[in-house]
């Protein structure tokens, strides 16, 4: 049996990519514009906030604690050589609040929720439930996309604060129990190193990441084709695309904030 390979034109690939970017932009813009159009599905938003926020709490708690503890453990071994173990609090604080807290929480929620959104909406597409909703006179972007976008951006903000706090507690555990850092010294250094810019950076990122997770998840869900296999494909693509996009956006946001506020 001869295998046949179909050559794909690079122009077609570029066209498909441009179309995907255009449709993603349209969907994202619509999801934001819907906040200013009636009806606003508040009950659906609260339900999504519960699913996304409360549902993601256990993994955020565990990863926050672990990352904080690991950060303290790794930095302490270096600091010990220079006799600077007392600086652990500063390192953990800066690392967690400005970078690792938002990033790890974003990636965890992307893995859990972007896939969930893509598979849920994708299943609705292949079983014609989205068409049925449109046929019943309801806008699926208003009813399904906007509540997810609002709930994810809102809840990721609070989940990041929780992850930051638990990271600091994890770091404290390692610093105090393993390296004998004094409790007051640790928490004072944690508090004193932070300036407005750090907190601002750490709290603006989760809102952007929440927006990316939900719009990418919904976009892949809403553009699902090809039955159950298509749903699986959309789910995987949603997680990969949202994770990569989070990392890329994180870099540019950090750079932009440095450019705006200046380096430390």
């Amino acid at each position, binding site marked *: 049996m001869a295998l046949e390979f179909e050559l794909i034109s690079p122009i077609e690939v570029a066209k498909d990519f441009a179309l995907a970017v255009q449709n993603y932009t349209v969907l994202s813009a619509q999801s934001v514009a819907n906040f200013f159009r009636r009806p606003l599905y508040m009950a659906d938003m609260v339900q999504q906030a519960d699913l996304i926020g409360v549902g993601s709490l256990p993994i955020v708690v565990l990863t926050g604690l672990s990352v904080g503890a690991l950060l303290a453990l790794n930095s302490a071994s270096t600091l010990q050589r220079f006799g600077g173990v007392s600086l652990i609090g500063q390192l953990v604080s800066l690392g967690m609040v400005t970078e690792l807290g938002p990033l790890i929480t974003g990636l965890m929620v992307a893995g859990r929720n972007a896939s969930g959104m893509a598979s849920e909406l994708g299943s609705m597409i292949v079983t014609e439930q989205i068409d049925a909703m449109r046929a019943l006179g309801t806008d699926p972007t208003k009813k399904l996309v906007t509540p997810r976008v609002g709930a994810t951006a809102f809840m990721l903000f609070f989940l990041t604060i929780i992850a930051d706090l638990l990271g600091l507690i994890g770091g404290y555990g390692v610093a105090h129990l393993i390296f004998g850092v004094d409790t007051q010294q640790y928490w004072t250094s944690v508090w004193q190193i932070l300036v407005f810019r750090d907190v601002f950076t750490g709290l603006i990122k989760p809102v952007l990441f929440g927006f990316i997770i939900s719009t990418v998840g919904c976009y892949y869900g809403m553009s699902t084709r090809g039955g159950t296999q298509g749903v699986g494909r959309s789910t995987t*693509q949603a997680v990969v695309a949202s994770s990569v996009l989070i990392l890329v956006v994180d870099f540019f946001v950090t750079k932009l904030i440095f450019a705006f506020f200046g380096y430390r």
Partner: protein
Amino acid sequence: MPAPTLPIENPATSVVRPSDCAIEFENVSIAFDEKVVLNGISFRLEHGETKAVFGVAGSGKSTMLKLAIGLLRPDSGRIFVLGEEVTRMSEQELFQLRRRVGMVFQESALFDSLKVYENVAFRLMEEKIPAEEIEQRVREVLRFVELERTYDMFPSELSGGMRRRVAIARAIITQPEVLLYDSPTGGLDPVTSNTIVELIMKQRDVYKTSALLVTHRLQDAFTMATYQFDKATNQMVALPKGQYCEVAMSFLILRDGKVIFDGDAHQLATSRDEYIREYIS
């Protein structure tokens, strides 16, 4: 990345023409990739008329219904529904029009995470109708399709035939002016199919709703033409031989993207076209 088909906003203002018929297609064509599915089809569905649409698999029957309700847009041609030009309406304008049209999907397309009463009440909940009125109307329409006992069940707990009946209940709860049925008896056993046909007939004869009925089963359409729903006995009764039902019932056959027949039962039965004779034999 797959090419998505998100709803495209069309800023052009819609054209309204006097609602002299329920649905009108004017030279409508649509192709998917290179395949032409509908090629310049034209027909009219009068108010109160039921038109059964036939054609082999892939002939564009379901596509025709989706075009009528604006879920798809044609490549060329014009479509009027209840006097409004669907082909020039924006997605937002279409949401308003769709509230006057009911559609029963091929695989029911019930919302699987919602219970039966939430599915049936979906449109009423969107219109913010008081809860007591919603419950009363949902029970009424579920009684109409003889499924009141399923009120609190999930779609996954229902049989295929029951799901179709719930889908019909969802489509008719607001008493739309036009109903679109996409193979409502497809894949069902003959007994269940008869129950569904009886329901469609009941809706046609009791409420005189205009309808486009896509079906593979010729016998369903002939039953629709030769039986009438009797309100007194709450069942369909056969009409005397040679007599057709009071409500206008017509047939439309699609072949290779074109309409090859559009007429009543008598014209269909006496057609000399070889393909049609073979199709109905």
